[in-house]
């Protein structure tokens, strides 16, 4: 065999093309600037070969799919013969026949690959009949919306969920004409193991999986004179939004976003980077404390909500290794709701905090019950970059034409540390800047840590701080996270700090961003963030005047009680049916055994939460040595779920109160015979 790196030549459409390391003919064609149509080929996913659009004709071999063909020197390839055109057209027409053709009202309209390929291939008519019945649309997820009637079964979502994220919340089910992509048992996405990263929506060529749209609710708030709507803009948004308005990738558009939001009716426009600076200080302080105590290391970052849910589901035993810090979005939310009502002169219930995020999982995060006070969420609405684009367009504005405006103070203040959060490695670097400054005089401290920057999905670095070596790992993609967490679990990972981001290259590759398939686009976005860092006056979180002001007036010192109340959080075990039965409290000789069903039905009826709360009650009552609690499987009484067995008694449609009542009753009953003989 010829070495792969030696450039060789083949002929594509009569023109000579050199190739080297390209793993298939499709990539060679792309290199020759021929955009071979495909739905199911993605360079970062396994080759699937199902959409049959990337067909090419090779002399002597006939028609083959270019995605599965290894390029060979001397091949003569035709990419656009009449026969190939006809077959591609038939394939697209077949897909359109059973596709929901509601294009004008589809959120993916004009960004849909099926639509654009139909246009490119000159499909003017669908000659085949619609044969599949309409399926229900799944709107159960806080982050994503799934419309199976628009699905073309290319499997991109399935592979990204499995291969990149190692979650596998959705998969193919059934076969042949009945094939669908679905969560297990045809359940809704909201009830599945989905971590809401939205990467499936990022690769979906049609509108079958799209980020959930919360624009309408926001329009209503904006139109309501009683409401004061304020915004926070995540770092990654500013370097991507311009792409949707024809600006080159990596254009920084913070000022234009501010201008646009004000025109839309936002009262104040702030920066999530401010909250990121707070995160750096809280997380850095927490890290130093753990390090000095040698306790619960490595520490995992907790800014990425998809990673947090992932850890809760698959690594509950490592939850104490997660930083207790809330993400910047939630720190901002809780602080805003704490400070701004009086500062802006608005009732708390009329202050609407909107965050503009590159991320779909942030929508889920904002809905977590721990991020609400008095029934009011800290962050009311989360918009993705894509939704921001829609709103700007809906208002008739062109972002590219707007004159930039400044952000509002005080939460518009930021340091470079808070900006680089948007790129993989940024959080680690920002924390390092803080940690180093605590060990050296500020002017001696290093600012740039090139060691943690980069694009690889799993990278590590050793950094010397105050004579000690800090071992840092940075990962993006949850499959990589799983790999490193498994190592930690096995005691084979010697790290101090591990930064995890679910999306490729970090938040800049979030599923809420304008869709891109080009790795260069992500690189440009990242570069733009680091450029901002270099251009701002301050580079470390602790120099941010607004942050300093917050500690002075409200929080006191880092990691103070107040800081904990506002800026930290706790996690829950979301694993179900792990090692059955799942012991929650396991005294040596229990007086009473409580089994909480965590089977499908009961779990969906809230038994997981019940189990957790029961643990709290047991601890609160000091029953740890009396009562054994375990999660268990089906009582075959699913209609009355959740089911809890207390001793021999089955409590149907159980609530914590009912279970506690039954426990108390039985405990009292057990004590009676003991008392009698005395």
């Amino acid at each position, binding site marked *: 065999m010829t070495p792969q790196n030696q450039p060789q030549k083949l002929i594509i459409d009569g023109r000579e093309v050199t190739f080297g390391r390209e793993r298939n003919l499709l990539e060679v064609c792309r290199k020759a600037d021929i955009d071979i149509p495909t739905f199911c080929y993605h360079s970062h996913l396994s080759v699937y070969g199902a959409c*049959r659009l990337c067909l090419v004709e090779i002399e002597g071999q006939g028609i083959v799919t270019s995605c599965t063909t290894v390029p060979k020197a001397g091949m003569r390839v035709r990419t656009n013969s009449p026969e190939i055109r006809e077959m591609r057209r038939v394939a697209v027409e077949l897909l359109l026949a059973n596709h929901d053709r509601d294009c004008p009202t589809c959120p993916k309209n004009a960004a849909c690959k099926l639509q654009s390929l139909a246009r490119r291939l000159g499909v003017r008519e669908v*000659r085949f009949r619609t044969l599949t019945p309409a399926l229900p649309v799944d709107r159960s997820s806080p982050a994503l919306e799934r419309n199976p009637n628009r699905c073309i079964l290319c499997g991109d979502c399935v592979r990204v969920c499995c291969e990149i994220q190692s979650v596998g919340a959705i998969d193919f089910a059934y076969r042949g004409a009945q094939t669908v992509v679905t969560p297990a048992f045809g359940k809704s996405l909201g009830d599945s193991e989905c971590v809401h990263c939205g990467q499936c929506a990022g690769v979906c060529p049609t509108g079958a999986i799209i980020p959930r749209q919360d624009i309408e609710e926001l329009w209503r708030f904006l139109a309501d004179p009683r409401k004061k709507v304020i915004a926070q803009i995540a770092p990654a948004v500013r370097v991507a939004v311009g792409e949707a308005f024809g600006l080159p990738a990596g254009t920084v558009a913070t000022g234009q976003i501010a201008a646009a939001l004000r025109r839309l009716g936002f009262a104040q426009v702030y920066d999530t980077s401010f909250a990121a600076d707070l995160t750096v200080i809280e997380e850095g302080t927490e890290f130093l404390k753990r390090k000095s105590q040698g306790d619960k290391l490595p520490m995992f970052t907790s800014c990425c909500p998809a990673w947090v849910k992932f850890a809760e589901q698959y690594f509950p035993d490592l939850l104490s290794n997660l930083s207790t810090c809330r993400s910047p979005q939630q720190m901002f939310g809780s602080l805003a709701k704490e400070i701004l009502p009086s500062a802006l002169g608005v009732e708390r219930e009329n202050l609407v905090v909107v965050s503009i995020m590159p991320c779909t999982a942030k929508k889920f995060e904002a809905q977590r019950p721990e991020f609400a006070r008095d029934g009011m969420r800290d962050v009311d609405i989360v918009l993705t970059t894509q939704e921001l684009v829609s709103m700007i367009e809906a208002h008739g504005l062109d972002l590219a034409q707007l004159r930039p405006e400044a952000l509002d103070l005080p939460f518009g203040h930021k340091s470079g540390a808070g900006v680089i959060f948007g790129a993989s490695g940024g959080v680690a670097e920002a924390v390092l800047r803080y940690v180093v400054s605590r060990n050296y005089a500020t002017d001696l401290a290093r600012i740039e840590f090139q060691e943690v920057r980069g694009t690889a999905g799993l990278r590590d670095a050793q950094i010397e701080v105050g004579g000690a070596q800090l071992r840092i790992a940075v990962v993006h993609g949850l499959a990589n996270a799983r790999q490193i967490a498994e190592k930690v679990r096995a005691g084979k990972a010697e790290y101090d700090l591990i930064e995890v981001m679910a999306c490729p290259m970090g938040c800049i590759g979030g599923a809420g961003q304008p869709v891109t398939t080009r790795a260069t686009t992500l690189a440009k976005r990242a570069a733009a963030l680091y450029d901002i860092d270099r251009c701002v006056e301050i580079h470390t979180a602790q120099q941010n005047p607004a942050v300093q002001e917050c500690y002075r007036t409200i929080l006191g010192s880092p990691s103070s009680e107040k800081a904990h109340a506002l800026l930290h959080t706790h996690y829950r075990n979301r694993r179900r049916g792990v090692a059955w039965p799942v012991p929650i409290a396991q005294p040596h000789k229990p007086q009473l055994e409580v089994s909480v069903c965590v089977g499908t039905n009961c779990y969906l009826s809230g038994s997981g939460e019940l189990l957790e709360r029961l643990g709290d009650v047991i601890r609160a009552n000091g029953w740890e040595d009396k009562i054994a609690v375990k999660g268990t499987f089906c009582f075959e009484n699913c209609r009355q779920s959740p089911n809890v067995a207390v001793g021999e008694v089955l409590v149907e449609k159980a609530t914590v109160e009912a279970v506690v009542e039954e426990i108390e009753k039985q405990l009292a009953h057990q004590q009676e015979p003991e008392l009698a003989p005395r």
Partner: protein
Amino acid sequence: MTTATLTVDLEAIAAAYQRAAGAIRQRVIVCAGTGCMASGAMRVYEAFTRELARWGLKVELELTSDEPNTEPTPPPAPDRYLVSRSGCQGFCQMGPLVTIQPYNVFYVKVTPEDVPEIVEKTLLGGETVDRLLYVDPRTKKRAPSTDHIAFYKQQHRLVLAQCGLIDPEKITEYIAFGGYASARLALTQLQPEQICQIITESGLRGRGGGGFPTGVKWDAARRQPGNQKYVICNGDEGDPGAFMDRSVMEGNPHAVLEGMIIAARAIGADSGYIYVRAEYPLAVQRLRKAISQAREFGLLGENIFGTNFSFDVEIMEGAGAFVCGEETALIASIEGQRGMPRPKPPFPAQAGLWGKPTIINNVETLATVPLILRHGPERFRSVGTPSSPGTKTFALTGHVPNTGLIEVPFGTTLRQIIFDIGGGVTNAKGRIRDDAFKAVQIGGPSGGCLTREHLDLPLDFDSLREFGAMVGSGGLVVTNSQTCMVQLARFFMQFTQNESCGKCVLCREGTKQMLALLDEIIEGRATPRSLDLLELLAHAVQKGSLCGLGKTAPNPVLSTLRYFREEYVAHVEKKRCPAGQCRALAMPTIVAERCRGCGLCVRACPVGAIAGERKKPHVIDEKRCIRCGACFDACKLDAVAYA
């Protein structure tokens, strides 16, 4: 695992078997294939043992005599009666089948009630029971033995030779008939490359349908580096109407195992899988038994025949997916995945099961391998045609009087198969009418149909392709003139549509649309455009699908369009089904020359649409006719026809 020291002595086992056989006066062989079992063969088997015992005769159920290694005893007197079971003898429709040796008397449709008479007359009296003999449907003559039955006479049984003879559950019988000697040769005297060379020289081609040269496939796997390789026996025979592999697995499971051992030696594999359809419980049971016997005899396990070669086999039962007959889908299935094919290359010989070099051979192919080693490649090449040596088994079904499993040399013509072995063609009323022949569908859902003009075509892997058909795995369905070819195409299209894995667009969506178009045609809703679309789709699916299932799925449609286009056109344009099978379209007419005006049809017609003078040809009123077909069924003179 068996120990290294145990080396099986095949000759001693064979000799012991022959000695024991010397004590047998007569042998009753009851066919115990799935077909005969379903017809009650086990109760016949039990009746024989009971009845013989009742006569106070010495009954043996098994030929196990002394230990192979002990001193030979003097030959016993031949005074025993052996009642044994065999694998499928192929003539399932006539089951349960019973053969009495040494006379070779062959009884069909035997019931337990017949057994006392057989014992008394045939076994003890030496006479035949005439009423249980097979009657030739053409000549009405009784056939005293299989040599007189056209169905068997014209066959050439190599792979199936032992199927109707030996007891598939007894390894000693297989060994006594020369079994495992080829495996020993391969392990002790031949190098892997020599084995590949012999198989390549023999010209053996894969019997599963593709016809790829087996020796070439093996050699490709042999050349792959690595010490972990696999041999997979593909027993996922899914074609509707084909049961060749089932019969071999049930009737001669050790031949399959021996073939696998030789294949494993040839490529350097140490483990193998037999992937069997779940619909074949008896095959699974017999294979399991064969594997455990082979392990017991040291023929599977470590250090086979005292060499340093080790090999073992596991059975994997399919879970009901036709597409798993495709090799990459089969591998996915063994790996615990959905059985969806993946693009090739890489071929399994390069990266197969768990990414390791793997060869996948069909049951019949593997069962042929020991014969090639035993008799030499030249002898194998002397049967069949130069490009397709050897024999091929077919499942002959449809409108022929003799249906069942047959084996013929490649190069046999369809005429020989249908008219000699099959005994002719039956019309809608079951009468043999050779002019009723319309077409033969060959190769199942991947194949096509051939017509009268192809009857003298020698069958082999290559000869059929240019006519739009293929040998496939060997299903042969003969159809008569009352078979609607659109319906036949629809049947196969429905099958592939159901069995499509759903992965690639053209197969999943294309077969679905093709089925819908065929339904339109059959139900009279089609327009001339429907036919154009059907053809357009057929070509696109054929050219562009991912795997063999999709690529061949349009064949039944394309070949019926090729040879019976006028039938499609009649459906579409005249809204008529010439064969009268499509209920919505069929318009019966009365052929005046045949009608004698008996009035049977008038009485049968539920709507009074038939009228005519007595003893004169009747007429059907097309406006009143509801096309129910009652007149057709009622007429005894075949005077009602579909125009």
